[in-house]
């Protein structure tokens, strides 16, 4: 999986591409630990699969951002990924929007 960081004045956007599983979580954790953003937008448009370790990474990012007074916004969720969030009811815990552009409104 590739992770592209895009810096904005108020938030960090991570564009993820590929299979997001336990092998790939360290680079996302590293990026978030390095920049310690208050707000993070995670673009999942090109993510083909998430496992529980990836979900745990997103949950941890959400908790950290909320502690700093910000939040994690998940954007462009493809259908297979959306199903995983619905089955685990993590869709109740996250802010999920359709486009990266919409995320800037949050």
């Amino acid at each position: 999986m590739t992770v592209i960081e895009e810096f904005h004045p108020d938030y960090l956007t991570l564009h993820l591409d590929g299979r997001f599983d336990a092998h790939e979580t360290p680079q996302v954790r590293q990026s978030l630990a390095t920049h310690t953003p208050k707000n993070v937008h995670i673009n999942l448009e090109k993510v083909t699969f998430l496992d529980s370790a990836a979900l745990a990474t997103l949950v941890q990012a959400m908790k950290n951002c909320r502690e700093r007074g910000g939040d994690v916004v998940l954007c462009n969720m493809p259908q297979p990924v959306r199903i995983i969030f619905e089955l685990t009811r993590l869709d109740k815990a996250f802010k999920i929007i359709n486009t990266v552009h919409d995320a800037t409104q949050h």
Partner: protein
Amino acid sequence: MTLLNTNAATLVAAATNVDLTSAGSSAEMKSTVDTATQVAAAMAQLELELDDMAQDLIDSQDQLLALYEMNRSTRLNADLHDTLQMMAQQAQRLLRVDCAFVALTMPDHDLQFVQVPDGFVDFEQFTCICDESNNATQEWQLDPETHNAIFGIAIKNGYMRRFGIRAGVCAILGALNKKNGAFRSPDIKLARSIADRAASSIETALLVQDNLSQARLQTEIALAQRIQAELLPKSTILPDQIQLSVLSVPAREVGGDFYDMQALPDRPFAFYVGDVSGKGLSAAMLMAVTRTAIRTHHRYIYDPQPATILDRANYDLYGDFTDVGMFATVFYGQYLPLSNEIVYANCGHSPVIYMPHDGEPQLLEADSPPIGVMDTTFCSTHRLRFALGDVLLVTSDGLNEAGAPNGELFGIERMIALLKQYHSNSAQVIRDALLAAVNDFSKGVRHDDQTVLVLKHI
């Protein structure tokens, strides 16, 4: 040597005496004396050379014995610190220096420093020596004028040699204050030879250390595996109407999946399946505490409603899960024999499939995120008719997310199709059929823990 020199002097004196008594002319006498003196001087020189050669021979023999001793000690001595100590001792003795040391830097920047005699230089002084090495690639000598000021001790001279052991592991052999002179070519050759021996000895000690660590880890994992197996229920008295078959297979030695059953006299029969995010030892540890929290609430809570039990467990564990960045999905159910019902609550667990004997399979979706995600759950207690022939299938996502070699996932639809095909069989047959189908689909490759619980009303 002393004896030989005395003999040479006696010879000169004897020759002089003979000449004084028997010679006819002073010229002849002087010539004879000169010859005798020259012979005596030549003999003395030869004796000196012989003495040096004998000493060299003794030294060489000593060095060979010492190197042999180093090799032998390497085989006998597996401890890394002892190996470094022995290398420093031998270097000090063979190189004839006031102090010898061996320093070892590890990939994690851990430094081991052993010197003989202990305390000759302190750590700061040693750091000064190593800083100097930045300009020298493999071996270098200390400038005594510079270092006397830094060390505050009398450093006459010093020789250092750096040598690699393996990737990320580097060592320095150092010798300070050569007795009787400077470090000459034979000393440096000997130091190189000692460094070569030291490299192989240290490598052996590191290998032994690695193997020991690996063996210790394997033992601990085996112990964890046994403890986890002990935590899973072996036999539980089931309600008469219930057939239950369950199996959990971790992807590694231990895993984060768990299941449990509780049959207490004053409580409804309870069963639950959980899945801690991640795999391995960390997941296994959290699996144990999650199971304990649920068990405790099931046993002691005043009104053991499924949603209340999971909410209390979440309350207990939220902080711990947050600290370690993990969560756990849990499906918790109770069978009520009087009303032939299952009551359940579901925190993020999937898939759970209910198949009534007279209807189509239904997916029982969670209504709350997993335990540990938020400080409160949103789950409710749901009721389900559970009559003769009804089947409930609860698995971990290690089954529906099992992948074929082409990347395709097994999926929930295949599980539903299998349940429709096998639901009239016993719980164990359904369980085994599902596991076999998943195993066949993924060609035996298991990336995640797999747990199957089948409950059937008989």
